[in-house]
């Protein structure tokens, strides 16, 4: 069985032969007729393509030797399609120039006993958590293909070898190709065990290969959720109650219903109003004409000022969940010769993916299908089933490429909405697209926290005790409350744990206490690229910088002293400091700052160079970023992720803030929620320190060192210690 669920744009010079499973979105453009043929699976269709062979769940080989590698994780720009395909192809020994990828569907995963494992795409886990089984999938397929050739030749498989999709038997001089033996291979029993290559022997993995999905993104042919078109489809726009926790009280659709193209004006659940129309623009403008009255509920007067007071109280509360503890920090601080204390804060932020949330759904009493860009296909499938009331076996989700994810598309709220709308018009596909305003005000925001750090010092300036008290929101309490045990959300402590891939602290402190007073204002938090590592690195790395300056120590020297037992952390810090020129004179007016952390299995550090004018205008000039992800699967894409991470992290540090007034988010679009643009983007130099022996993620960890490295450089430039973000709201004039 071969599954075609990807929406592919096939460029065709003129009239296209359209198969049963294809349909046309035809458009005439310059130079004649240009036809886009999309593969869009329709209800109840067999997905098999004749004559192609599924060797195993990961590998399909066509008679022309082209290879389709199945990828369960979602592509949202991070390059996972290419990186995971490299790992499979490496073990498969196929011809890379003949490789394409496709998504299996969540429904097929359920039907096949989760043969593709986890579809969840977040936490920088695409490669680090699936590398083992996808490589084994490639190796098993190679073993079966070679065995099929050996069987045909009646020789031992051990006498045959495979390279670039060709199998040869040297003794007899025979050779064949994967395409010729794939059908026979698919009937063989998979090997019980396979040996994986030593990474030093890799020829595809570890190389600076071009992405497999670039060209369509330069021609406009890549189909995103916004672009999907199904036969008979209608479009929808929606407004949820802008106050989280509020409900719809009433609405007057008189003006909207008479507008051109409008099919329905309707309530969605208890909390939203939507318009369904022939085009999205007509739906959106009609929705603007609906007069809506909300029951704003208990949070109608909530504000960011109120949240600040709630979090401040948590900084001194007696009750807190302990995340990391050794010795007796409070006693050591009480007994110390000198004490340093600072309070930091981190605001709410919106993911602001370029493509707003969207999903297309078609419901009949027998089956419900959804086409959507999602970071979690299986969660989207569960949400579909729950919203439509049909069992999972009668539901399906087809994943589309994401126009950005950053954690927001791990949620399925927009899928639920689309299904509820489709249920109102059985048989008609409904494409729901959020306006940017809806996207900005219905986010799942970066959690707000504050942190009070208290260090006790001895007479020589050594840290004798450190207490980090975090106060604020828990993502798990909102999203996966079953994972909060005894009031403790373990991911609050990312980067601050004693050990482990989910971010061990890089310092040895003789007496340490890191605890969290959970305070959950009503604004829903979500996983936001980098998650809690982001603010934790700001808190700790800026405070270490404070201690260094307060004790007249060089920030690098102090860190080295505290990091002697953390050689991997230290190696990337040294790499960033060295390439960044730490300790060497900087150009006139240029100042440097350092930061390091660990997260998502990788070690990262940065050296930032900034200038600040007499008027307090900041320019981030250069970032040197060192990363140790263990094994590097595609160095040029790791560089792209590091650069992108800095753009995301710097955007947050410079501009990112969502504030609440009257229970609702005040920022409604990019004019009030500015983000980093070209003119703000520093030069980024990536130092890849691939020490091998482990698998770390690269999509997120570097974000966390962007802000603290810049904040520490700002202190060096101005003497101002910035403890609250974003920087656009801070006075940066020299102190």
């Amino acid at each position, binding site marked *: 069985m071969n599954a075609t669920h990807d929406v592919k744009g096939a460029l065709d010079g003129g009239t296209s032969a359209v198969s049963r499973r294809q349909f046309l979105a035809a458009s005439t*453009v*310059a130079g004649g007729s240009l036809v886009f043929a999309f593969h869009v699976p329709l209800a109840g269709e067999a997905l098999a393509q004749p004559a192609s062979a599924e060797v195993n769940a990961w590998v399909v080989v066509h008679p022309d030797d082209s290879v389709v590698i199945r990828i369960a994780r979602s592509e949202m720009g991070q390059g996972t399609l290419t990186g995971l395909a490299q790992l499979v192809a490496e073990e498969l020994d196929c011809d890379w120039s003949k490789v394409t990828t496709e998504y299996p569907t969540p429904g097929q995963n359920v039907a096949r006993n989760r043969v593709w494992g986890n579809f969840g795409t977040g936490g920088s886990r695409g490669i680090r958590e699936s590398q083992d089984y996808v490589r084994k999938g490639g190796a098993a397929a190679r073993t079966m293909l070679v065995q099929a050739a050996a069987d045909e030749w009646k020789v031992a498989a051990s006498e045959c070898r495979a390279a670039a999709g060709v199998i040869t038997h040297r003794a007899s001089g025979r050779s064949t190709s994967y395409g010729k033996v794939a059908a026979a291979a698919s009937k063989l029993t998979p090997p019980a065990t396979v040996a994986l290559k030593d990474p030093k022997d890799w020829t595809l993995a570890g190389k600076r290969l071009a992405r497999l999905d670039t060209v369509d993104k330069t021609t406009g042919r890549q189909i995103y959720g916004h672009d999907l078109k199904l036969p008979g489809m209608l479009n929808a726009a929606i407004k949820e109650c802008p106050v989280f926790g509020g409900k719809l009280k009433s609405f007057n659709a008189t003006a909207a219903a008479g507008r051109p193209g409008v099919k329905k004006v309707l309530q969605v659940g208890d909390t939203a109003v939507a318009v369904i129309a022939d085009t999205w623009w007509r739906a959106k403008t009609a929705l603007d004409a609906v007069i809506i009255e909300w029951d704003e509920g208990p949070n109608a007067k909530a504000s960011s000022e109120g949240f600040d007071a709630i979090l401040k109280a948590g900084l001194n509360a007696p009750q807190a969940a302990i995340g990391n503890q050794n010795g007796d920090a409070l006693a050591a601080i009480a007994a110390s010769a000198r004490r340093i204390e600072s309070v930091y804060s981190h605001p709410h932020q919106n993911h602001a993916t370029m493509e*707003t949330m969207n999903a297309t759904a078609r419901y009949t009493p027998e089956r419900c299908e959804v086409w959507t860009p999602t970071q979690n296909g299986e969660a989207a499938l569960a949400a579909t089933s729950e919203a439509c009331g049909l069992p999972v076996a009668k539901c399906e989700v087809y994943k589309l490429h994401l126009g950005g994810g950053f954690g927001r598309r791990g949620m399925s709220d927009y899928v639920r909405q689309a299904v509820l709308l489709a249920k109102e018009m059985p048989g008609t596909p409904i494409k729901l697209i959020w306006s940017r305003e809806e996207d900005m005000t219905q986010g799942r925001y970066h959690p707000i926290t504050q942190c009070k750090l208290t260090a006790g010092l001895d007479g020589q300036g050594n840290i004798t005790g450190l207490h980090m008290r975090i106060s604020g929101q828990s993502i798990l309490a909102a999203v996966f409350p079953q994972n909060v045990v005894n009031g403790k959300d373990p991911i609050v402590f990312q980067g601050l744990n004693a050990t482990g891939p989910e971010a061990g602290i890089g310092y040895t402190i003789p007496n340490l206490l890191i605890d969290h007073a959970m305070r959950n204002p009503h604004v829903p938090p979500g996983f936001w690229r980098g998650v809690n590592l982001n603010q934790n690195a700001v808190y700790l790395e800026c405070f270490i910088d404070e201690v260094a300056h307060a004790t007249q120590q060089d920030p690098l020297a102090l860190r080295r002293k505290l990091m002697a037992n953390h050689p991997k952390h230290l190696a990337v810090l040294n790499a960033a400091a060295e390439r960044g020129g730490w300790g060497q004179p900087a150009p006139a007016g240029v100042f440097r700052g350092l930061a390091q952390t660990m997260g998502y299995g990788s070690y990262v550090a940065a050296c930032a160079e900034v200038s600040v004018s007499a008027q307090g205008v900041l320019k981030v000039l250069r970032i040197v970023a060192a990363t140790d992800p263990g094994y590097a699967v595609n160095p040029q894409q790791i560089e792209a992720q590091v650069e992108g991470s800095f753009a995301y992290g710097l955007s947050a540090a410079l501009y990112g803030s969502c504030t609440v007034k009257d229970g609702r988010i005040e920022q409604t679009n990019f004019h009030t929620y500015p983000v980093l643009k070209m003119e703000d983007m520093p030069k980024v130099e990536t130092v890849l320190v691939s020490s091998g022996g482990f698998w770390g993620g690269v999509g997120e960890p570097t974000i966390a060192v962007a802000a603290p490295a810049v904040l520490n450089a700002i202190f060096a430039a101005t003497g101002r210690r910035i403890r609250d973000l974003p920087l656009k709201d801070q006075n940066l004039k020299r102190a």
Partner: protein
Amino acid sequence: MTQLNVNGAMRTFEAEADTPLLWVLREQLGLTGTKYGCGIAQCGACTVHIDGVPTRSCVRPVSSVSAAAKVVTIEGLSADGSHPVQKAWAALDVPQCGFCQSGMIMAATALLKAKPMPTDADIDEAMTNICRCGTYNRIRAAIKVVANGGNAKLAGLSIQHADRSTT
């Protein structure tokens, strides 16, 4: 029925006069390469050329575009991705999620036509589109590749392509 000259062909459509050009392109004419990002001319994902001028089509009422004006979208830049800007973008693997890249390419194409050898300051001034993946440095490098005759090796990325070329 209203007429527009899009990508060299006269197209007819029906839409309210105040419908933004973006939505006519996407919904009436099926040209979905031009994207909706913000609807208020902030992000540039909707950038098209009108008589060669980069224009944010999300705030441009279609009634204000005359049938004589030449509208070019990403689909009209080349039939096969062979425009020098598209080629540089592919050679440098510029896109990540890719959603902003149609607008970026249209903005860059207009910049390079007006200033074939743009300075960094020219690039900063002209390229005000938003990319949330943070591809800005590769965009800057790709613009410079085009300005320097298309030699992608200038960017120093050493990317190995499926056809075994390296850029």
